[in-house]
């Protein structure tokens, strides 16, 4: 009793082949899209390399690129199979490959599922990496004369302006580090000396932020210094001022951006298409094979997913696997039975000979 049997006339077989050909080219486009998505994600991650501490998250774009390329190849093969399927002379050479194709399609579906799961699972690691990277960036903001860190300032400034964020969690992170280099501090000034002595590490801390935290949408020209002192500026209330600086932290902004990129629907769509293709391909394969076995190739044939039902197929596969394992072993019981049968056959021929004679 075959699983999900359907009858296919010649016309329906042609339609099936055409539909599958279209579906396979659609899947090639999807595969190309997934590849481009992987490349774009990798480029974006590499651009912000400086504020990330580790590269664990790179496994997602790497997988996407691999799966994209593999699916382009596999679906191109599928389209060739469709083109040849209605030609009885050319179809047999694909028969051998089809089992491999099913395996590849299954593998690709699993990988796509893995990508989706990974992109959610690695969100925590991405946030950790960004937290450490941004913390270092803010600490080394002032070191524009130290080789290897000269561009931290520019990187952080551009990052804050582009993603409209300030600091790691919020703008108060800037109050805890010295972000003005000692080169630009007048150590003879009393104010500077007071500030340096006011904390244990001897750092020049102030309640001010760099200019890149400023929000252009504020109706008021940007207030950068003495932010916690409501009396330092006219008509300014520290607690209720919202528009002056960006209120979001850069870690949150970057995480949202990357999660948005990774959670796009590409992998989901492609896996759905692959599953559909596998089902249709199986129908096509069985229908065409049935047609080739018929006396008149134009007649009706049956298509199915599995030749017998699930239990019987499973028993078959198990038996085949055990056979394969026992291939090298010599079986003493079967040898003795074979010897007995051989003797019985000899006796029968002797009897036949005597009766004949």
């Amino acid at each position: 009793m075959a699983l999900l049997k359907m009858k296919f006339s010649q016309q329906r077989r042609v339609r099936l082949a055409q539909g599958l050909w279209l579906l396979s080219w659609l899947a090639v486009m999807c595969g190309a899209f997934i590849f481009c998505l992987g490349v774009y994600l990798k480029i974006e991650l590499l651009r912000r390399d400086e504020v990330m501490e580790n590269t664990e998250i790179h496994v997602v774009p790497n997988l996407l690129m691999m799966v994209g390329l593999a699916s382009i190849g596999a679906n191109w093969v599928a389209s060739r199979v469709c083109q040849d399927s209605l030609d009885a002379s050319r179809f047999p050479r694909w028969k051998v490959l089809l089992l491999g194709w099913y395996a590849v399609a299954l593998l690709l579906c699993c990988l796509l599922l893995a990508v989706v799961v990974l992109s959610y699972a690695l969100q925590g690691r991405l946030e950790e990496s960004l937290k450490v990277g941004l913390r270092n960036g803010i600490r080394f903001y002032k070191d524009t004369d130290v080789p290897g860190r000269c561009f931290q300032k520019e990187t952080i400034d551009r990052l804050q302006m582009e993603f409209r964020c300030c600091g790691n969690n919020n703008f108060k992170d800037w109050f805890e580090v010295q972000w003005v280099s000692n080169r630009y501090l007048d150590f003879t000034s009393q104010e500077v000396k007071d500030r340096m002595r006011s904390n244990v590490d001897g750092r020049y801390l102030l309640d001010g932020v760099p200019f890149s935290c400023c929000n252009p949408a504020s109706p008021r020209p940007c207030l950068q210094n003495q932010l916690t002192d409501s009396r330092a500026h006219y008509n300014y209330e520290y607690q209720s001022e919202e528009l002056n600086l960006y209120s979001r932290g850069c870690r949150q902004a970057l995480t949202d951006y990357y999660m948005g990129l990774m959670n796009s629907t590409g992998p989901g769509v492609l896996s759905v298409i692959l599953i559909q293709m596998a089902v249709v391909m199986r129908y096509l394969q069985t229908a065409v094979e049935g047609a080739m076995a018929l006396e008149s190739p134009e007649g009706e044939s049956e298509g199915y997913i599995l030749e017998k039902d699930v239990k019987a197929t499973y028993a078959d596969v198990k038996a085949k696997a055990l056979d394969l394992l026992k291939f090298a072993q010599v079986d003493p019981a079967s040898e003795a039975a074979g010897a007995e049968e051989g003797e019985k056959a000899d006796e029968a021929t002797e009897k036949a000979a005597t009766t004949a004679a």
Partner: protein
Amino acid sequence: MPFLSLKFNLQKRVKLAQGLWMLYWLAVIVGIILFSLGIFFKIELRKRSEIMDNNESHLVPNLLILVGMLSCGLNAFGGKLCHDSLDPQKFSKMKPMLRPYMLLCCGFNALLLLLVLLCFLMQFAVYLTLAEGLKNAIRFYKDTDTPGRCFMKRTLDMTQIEFRCCGNNNFRDWFEVQWISNRYLDMSNDVVKDRVLSNVEGKYLMDSVPFSCCNPGSPRPCIQHHLTNNSAHYDYDHRTEELNIWNRGCRQAVFSYYSGIMNSIGALLIFTMVLEAGDMAGLKYLSTALETMADPENPECESEGWLLEKGFKETLADLLSKVKTFGRANQVEEGGASPDVAAT
């Protein structure tokens, strides 16, 4: 003596038709590109219309959109002509449409030429509008509570950040206007009162710039205020300081952006003109080759194709005489009237 005539046998005609078909479809793709460039240019002008005083001219992008659509239509029709040309029945149906079509293509080429000239000449208009618009934008920077100008501050800040520029000609333009609204000035403060009284119009002027003029590439945290006062900042000399704020003026920066767009559009239009001329020449060859077939029933026969029926000078003379007679159509001819009178 036909001008630039060539002999065609069946194979050459077929090759000509196929090549011309591909060329027409290339022209359709170029038309689509022109259409999308027109839309892109229109959007870019709209995006920054606030710093251009909202009276920038949309003539070039509108014409470009029109030209793109026309090009698609005309060239698709031309492609269809080529496709049908090798089938004698369809070709005889198409024959009467050839002459008006060629005239339309000539007109279209003239329109393309006009658009190329406009692309290069309108850049002056853009420059002048930008100068005026930026001057007003800097003046209205502080008016974030005036309806119609609330977003001037944000627009100008984003422009200065995006184009890496400061002020109209340079950063000193900010010293001449009051860019802090009176709402945020403490009028009871002596410093404020001194500044306001120090100039005729009672404006609060300072030697400072907004934060959007700051250059992130500077090794030093940005110095926005007291820019001309060396003693206000440690280790600062305003004459030699180059990296602190952007040196370029926004008029120059934004203009070179738009000028780049317009120049590339002009170059693409020149390419389109050459392509169209090539298409027209090919179509003329194909149509004359098909018309001069000695034996229309036999497709294998040879025929001749040309660009102009008579030589170049003769065609010009013909055209001139046609134009003259066209002008004289309504005039009564004196020479013609007198023989009649003499006859009677």
